[in-house]
């Protein structure tokens, strides 16, 4: 496998890493042995993450520049971080891909197999299977500090002799041993591949018997390698991890600690990110816009369409993308911290039983919780799920979680129509949101996902570790960069499209200088308004805000203010003018059944497409086809529920 050959088939948002034919180095190993940490240490911030072509299996690739043993210029290697795999007997699509990439027609030039020194025997199972094939192999031993703490000492020379491949002790978290690893990889690369280890003759036996004999042979080989290369001092094993686990996984304390951790994540992605988002929003909406406007004036480029395209379109669109940056950064840092510390695996154990009813593992709880802050990082957080189909199902459920952008509209509508019951109405919307997530999950589980396997929980709990700053920042930056690259195009395009619709005059006037009510945008809103007649809010002014809400829910109130030509309450204006206009509009369209129509609107507002940024995140994670299936699902659910609420409500 060379860089050129593998990249040529590349798609799904994974850009080319290099144009030259760099030797491909695959990093393989079980989950939680430091595989991705080593990959990050080797490739740095330039690595990219995406889905393998034709699959929804995530992988990362990047360039590793090593000091050449023969030449003065550095050697460039293309490194692929393969999905975690305990063996070459796949139990999931991710493991199947790992097997295909390692043993397929175009195998990597060198495979680095990561083994955990603290659990050497079980880490060597994959190595035993790799040694049954013609390949260039280097074994990298991690966690030797953890092993030393348990009194286990590993002799790399003896292990190398037992395995029949170079062995290097590394600590990817502190980047030690990387130079030795580079030297070993180059030496192996320059030499012919090593002959496979000798296996018992089993070809004449039935498959089941054959696999048992081969399995026994591998375990015998592993036992020999372990006994040759390790000395166990039988030091007292620290039971600090067990003591923490007793709290973190306890029947009562476990769920409480989990809820506290989720609360922390929720707070960080809302309360902490919010002021940063406001600063960026202010910068784009005021500072940058003012500066660009003055430059345009100075250049004499005062055409309204040009001004609108640059300021409302490009700056507005790019501003929308970048205001998500603090939120996404915090989310990715928190995910990296939870994973690196070892807590995420424990959280999965706590919530496993509950989420299993939806056909999801316990980890799926996290993206759903984050979704209540903002759907965009919620979608991004689905990456923690092990199976692509679990990621897909969760990514379709996250949009039903009620984000804080919707909350501003609930509060305003509650204040306008329900007075002292406003708080109860807002609370009810969150209850409806939870019911929608569960009901949709059960519906999808019983229909499209009825064949989704329900694997039992067997989860290897990683040891607790102190997260490292460099690793956390590196992982968060790579994910943020990938999000910005993939989401920005869609968001900017939609923002420009909405601006264009609002700029096109339909009843005379000049392009870009037209009231919203006389624009193409209003014509489209009038076209779709009858669809909502059965739900009691079939007027163009209400329907138009649903179009704006498709771009960003935060813009709904200001859009109403613009439509009714009243002060924007979300920008400090009084609510009186808007209250009057909204009362009149809902009263008229509902035929006098005001409150059922308002409730129907709220339910529709909760359940339909969250925003274009969520769509961009979904497209990145689950592809365009499933994103649009999700949009259709949300619209159908939203419309049916809104009609139900209004029709039942007006009978009461």
């Amino acid at each position, binding site marked *: 496998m060379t860089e050129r050959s593998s990249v040529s088939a590349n798609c799904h948002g994974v850009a080319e890493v290099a144009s030259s034919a760099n030797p491909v180095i695959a990093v393989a190993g079980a989950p939680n042995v430091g595989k991705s940490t080593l990959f990050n240490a080797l490739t740095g911030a330039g690595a990219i993450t995406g889905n393998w072509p034709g699959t929804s299996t995530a992988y990362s690739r990047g360039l590793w520049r090593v000091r050449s043993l023969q030449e003065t210029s550095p050697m460039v290697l293309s490194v692929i971080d393969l999905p975690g795999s*305990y*063996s070459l*007997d796949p*139990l999931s699509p991710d493991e199947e891909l790992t097997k295909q990439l390692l043993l397929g027609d175009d195998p990597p030039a060198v495979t680095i197999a990561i083994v955990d020194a*603290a*659990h050497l*025997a*079980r880490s060597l*199972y*994959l190595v035993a299977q790799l040694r049954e094939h013609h390949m260039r192999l280097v074994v990298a031993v991690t966690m030797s500090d953890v092993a030393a703490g*348990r009194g*286990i000492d590993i002799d790399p020379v003896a292990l190398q002799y037992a395995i029949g491949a170079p062995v290097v002790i590394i600590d990817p978290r502190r980047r030690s041993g990387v130079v030795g690893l580079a030297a070993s990889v180059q030496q192996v690369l320059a030499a012919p591949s090593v002959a496979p280890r000798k296996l018992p003759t089993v070809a004449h036996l039935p498959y*089941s018997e054959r*696999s048992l004999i081969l*399995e026994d042979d591998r*375990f015998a080989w592993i036992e020999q390698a372990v006994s040759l290369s390790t000395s166990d001092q039988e030091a007292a*094993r620290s039971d600090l*991890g*067990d003591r923490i*686990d*007793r709290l973190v*996984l*306890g*029947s*009562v304390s*476990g*769920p409480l600690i989990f809820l506290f951790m989720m609360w922390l994540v929720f707070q960080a992605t809302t309360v902490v990110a919010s002021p940063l988002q406001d600063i960026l929003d202010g910068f784009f909406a005021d500072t940058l816009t003012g500066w660009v406007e003055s430059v345009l004036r100075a250049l004499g480029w005062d055409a309204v369409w040009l001004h609108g395209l640059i300021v409302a379109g490009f700056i507005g669109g790019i501003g929308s993308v970048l205001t998500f940056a603090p939120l996404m950064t915090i989310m990715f840092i928190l995910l990296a911290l939870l994973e690196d510390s070892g807590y995420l*695996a424990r959280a999965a*154990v*706590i919530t*496993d*039983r*509950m989420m299993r009813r939806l056909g999801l593992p316990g980890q799926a709880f996290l993206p759903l919780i984050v979704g209540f802050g903002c759907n965009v990082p919620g979608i991004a957080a689905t990456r923690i799920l092990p199976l692509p189909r679990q990621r897909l199902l969760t990514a379709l459920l996250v949009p039903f979680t009620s984000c804080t952008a919707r909350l501003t509209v609930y509060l305003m509508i509650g204040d306008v129509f329900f007075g002292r019951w406003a708080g109860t109405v807002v609370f009810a919307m969150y209850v409806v949101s939870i019911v929608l997530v569960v009901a949709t999950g059960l519906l999808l589980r019983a229909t499209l996902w009825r064949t989704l396997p329900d*694997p*039992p*929980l*067997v*989860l*290897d*709990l990683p040891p607790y570790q102190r997260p490292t700053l460099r690793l956390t920042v590196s992982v968060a930056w790579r994910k943020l960069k990938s999000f910005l690259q993939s989401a920005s195009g869609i968001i900017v395009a939609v923002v420009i499209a909405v601006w264009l619709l609002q700029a096109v005059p339909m009843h005379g006037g000049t392009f870009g200088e037209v009231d919203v009510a006389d624009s193409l945008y209003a014509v489209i809103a009038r076209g779709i308004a009858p669809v909502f007649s059965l739900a009691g809010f079939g007027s163009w002014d209400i329907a138009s805000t649903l179009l704006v809400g498709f771009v960003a829910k935060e813009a709904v109130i200001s859009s109403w203010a613009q439509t009714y030509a009243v002060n924007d309450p979300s920008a400090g204006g009084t609510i009186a003018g808007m209250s009057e206009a909204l009362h009149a509009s809902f009263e008229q369209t509902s035929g006098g059944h005001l409150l059922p129509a308002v409730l129907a609107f709220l339910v529709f507002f909760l359940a339909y497409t969250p925003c274009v940024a969520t769509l961009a995140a979904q497209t990145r994670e689950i592809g365009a086809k499933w994103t649009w299936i999700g949009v259709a699902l949300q619209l159908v659910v939203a419309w049916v529920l809104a009609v139900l609420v209004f029709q039942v409500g007006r009978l009461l």
Partner: protein
Amino acid sequence: MVLRLWYGCEVVSGVMSLGNAPLHTPLTLVTCLIEPGLRSRLATLGLRTGSPLEVVLTTAGHGRVIGVAGSRIAMDVSVLRQLHVKLASGGE
């Protein structure tokens, strides 16, 4: 005394489901009444017939954390029910 379970596997007395085994007691895995794929995965994690293990703690949701070869493996009730162990001392 030999009991015959519905899976058709033979289990000697003194053998119990891992879900019923006492905490912090040395145990030995006797049988894995589990489909081959998962059985193979458990084997790679160090859980083979004859492996020494112990139940470290019971988790929320009636699962358990099993200590085997220095590592900790969380399992749910359905898996625990299908793994049979006996006291490592051979006590029956």
